[in-house]
């Protein structure tokens, strides 16, 4: 029973990983990840973002 339980969970984990792999290969996720990377690294975007994210008390907005 315990073994079956563990087997089932291992299968769920394996299928989750396969789903992740398949998702990462889709054009939509590839574009999203590229856009997210640019959002974090593009210096022009950062120059606009920084003043917007700075608050008088120095905290980042949530």
């Amino acid at each position, binding site marked *: 029973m315990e073994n079956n339980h563990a087997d089932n969970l291992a*299968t*769920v984990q*394996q*299928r989750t990983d*396969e*789903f*992740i792999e398949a998702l990462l*290969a*889709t054009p939509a996720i590839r574009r999203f990840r590229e856009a*997210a990377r640019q959002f974090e690294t593009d210096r022009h975007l950062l120059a606009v973002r920084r003043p917007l994210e700075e608050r008088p008390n120095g905290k980042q907005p949530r």
Partner: protein
Amino acid sequence: MEASKEHGLTGSPEVAAAMEAARALGRALGESAQFKRFEAAHDALQADTEARQKLNEFLSHRQELSMESMFGSTDQAALEKLEQEWQSLSAMPSIISYLHAQEDLLAVLREAAARISQQIGLDYGAACSPSGGR
């Protein structure tokens, strides 16, 4: 439809593979002990007329109180009565089994969603909600 194709939502082999992988994950979840226990607990609760009636009454009273509290008129006695109703409900075996089974299944689902979110870089559970995470 054209817009979907243009944005890569349908039509590509990668999307078809992702859909098949999603179905396989769904099947694995459906075959898990947690899902089967939840299904059995759900059926047992449906068969327990007394528990179902009490649960419906509790949910109805809770909704009434929630509406009242929105208008700032929460009745303390009614709140205490609701708490008593919950205490009585949560001592019933079919309710206990259902809640435990639900908790166990949610833990598995949350773990899978957290894995997916971590790997793809967005909150997968929120993105799949009806409001699309907005």
